């Protein structure tokens, strides 16, 4: 943990048809940490993820990654810079095998474009060979080698989440945003997932996590930011956040879905 700032949002807002989904939120993620984002349903966590990853534009505030402004970048540009994510509702590719999913994740490390691709230049072929080797290594790391040739959409949920994770990690991202990675997993799968996320962090990738499963969140996060009604109301270690009166107030009497 270098203590340098990875991602910083200050005063970020988002308005949907008159409703302030996010109102001046401040979030700071340090390099090398696992940063959790919690809050009741509708607090704006996923909206915030969508803004960081370029799927939404913020309606104000500043957004920087490693000190540089990223508020106008597209998702693809951000991915090229090493910011990627997984999705709460799995986003898998139809008619593509597990290995091919990871291959897509490797996209940003290649340079061969349409012309090189069409002509099958030596460059394109070498790049492809390297990609295949790299894909195999990633498959092995995520224990997916045995099902490398299965269609990802036909796998059980636990495997599908692992495929998404492997695809995202194939980018070798600097920061990985996980949107409810444990939802729908059983206790054993959740424990495996926690191990995986820890290993991702120790590999040098900063992790940002939205998760309703509190044991998972409390077990993983170094720092937690709490959202409520589109406002960031608290920040601290899991132990600190748990004791804060405003956090208890936000959760008390609220229906959360876990």
């Amino acid at each position, binding site marked *: 943990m270098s203590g340098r700032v990875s991602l910083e949002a200050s005063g970020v807002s988002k308005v949907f048809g008159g409703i302030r989904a996010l109102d001046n939120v401040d979030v700071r993620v340090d390099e090398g940490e696992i940063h959790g984002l919690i809050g009741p349903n509708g607090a704006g966590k996923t909206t915030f993820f969508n803004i960081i990853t370029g799927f939404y534009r913020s309606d104000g505030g500043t957004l920087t990654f490693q000190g540089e402004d990223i508020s106008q970048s597209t998702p693809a540009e951000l991915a090229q810079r090493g910011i990627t994510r997984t999705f709460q509702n799995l986003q898998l590719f*139809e008619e593509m095998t597990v290995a091919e999913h990871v291959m897509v994740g490797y996209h*940003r490390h290649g340079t061969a474009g349409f012309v090189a691709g069409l002509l099958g230049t030596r460059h394109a072929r070498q790049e492809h060979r390297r990609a295949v080797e790299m894909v195999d290594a990633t498959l092995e790391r995520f224990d997916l080698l045995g099902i490398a040739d299965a*269609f990802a959409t036909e796998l059980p949920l636990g495997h599908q989440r692992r495929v998404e994770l492997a695809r995202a990690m194939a980018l070798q991202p600097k920061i990985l945003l996980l949107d409810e990675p444990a939802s729908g997993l059983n206790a054993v799968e959740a424990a495996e997932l926690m191990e995986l996320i820890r290993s991702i962090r120790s590999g040098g990738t900063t992790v940002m996590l939205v998760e309703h499963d509190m044991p998972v969140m409390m077990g993983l996060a170094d720092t937690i930011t709490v959202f409520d009604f589109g406002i960031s109301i608290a920040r601290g270690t899991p132990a600190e956040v748990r004791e804060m009166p405003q956090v208890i107030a936000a959760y008390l009497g609220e229906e959360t879905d876990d």
Partner: protein
Amino acid sequence: MSGMAHASAWKGLVGVAAVVVALGLGEMTEAFSISGLTGNVITFDTLIRIGILVPVVVGLNLLLGYAGQISLGQAGFYGLGAYASAITTARAGKIGLPPSVSTSWWWPWIVMVVAAAAVAGLAFLIGRAVLRLEGHYLAMATLGLGIAFFILFRENFGIDPSTVSLTGGSDGISDIPRLRIGSFSVWPAERYYFLVWAIALLSIWAANNLGRSRVGYALRALRSSPLAAQASGVDVPHSKAVTFALAAGFASIAGSLFAHFQIAVSPSSFSFAVSLEFVIMASIGGVASVWGGLTGVVVIFAIDETLKTQLPKIIDGPTGPYQLTVFGFLLAIIMIFAPEGVLHHFRRLRRTSAVPESGASS
């Protein structure tokens, strides 16, 4: 995983090339002929027509099968290539081209390449705008585009025919010269056959290469999840537009080949019905399969020609309407039972039996 796919793709290409050469040589030496082999159902002329359309359908397959984007206006790009070749040769004088250029052997070849590049460029610009649309909306937009080109051909690009008739209106343009290489004419038909199929195989080879490159994977990814493709660093709007441009460029080259084969063009060859036929051909071959392009053209031509020759034997009088009925019925069956393509359907069946338990390993 890729090594095997690579080898089998090469084997397929060499196999098709061998068949093409055998049929061509058979015809040239009169040892045997395709008409003889098929009882006159498929003629040598049909083989050339099939070869001409292969690049169109291969390009469309990249767009439809890989990137998942429909184009119901592909005949428009096909027509642009054809008219570019026709106008700059048969009407060279009218547009002020010096005969020393327009009658030289290399001119039509340059036109073919430049037209394809220009059509691709145009398609790229159109694609950036149009490909924001999805599903039915994209279908409608490209349909409109195809019809717009059709009208431009028929209406002489809006130029008053009394000043200059570029397209010849609904009569079209005739007296388009044959292609030559130096003083070597690429005609009679046996020679043209080899040219057409060389380009057809080249288009299959190139599309195959693309499918195995990182771009091919990116296109297949953006088809079903543009979100995840973007999160993986794929520039989705750009990739879609370039694929659209590529498909248009392939269609333009085929159009030029068509013009120099037919030595006459008229708008009816580039109507909406033709666009639709291209899409059907691409669909039959199936999703993300370059071979699908070839299969689709061959299957449709085979059905078409069989009906044309066999129906008169059982029906008196004009068979046109019956032919359309049977054709439509067959297509409906194919779309119901193998919506993702006949070829794809069979591959899929084989695959499911080959990978019995995908979840067993962990």
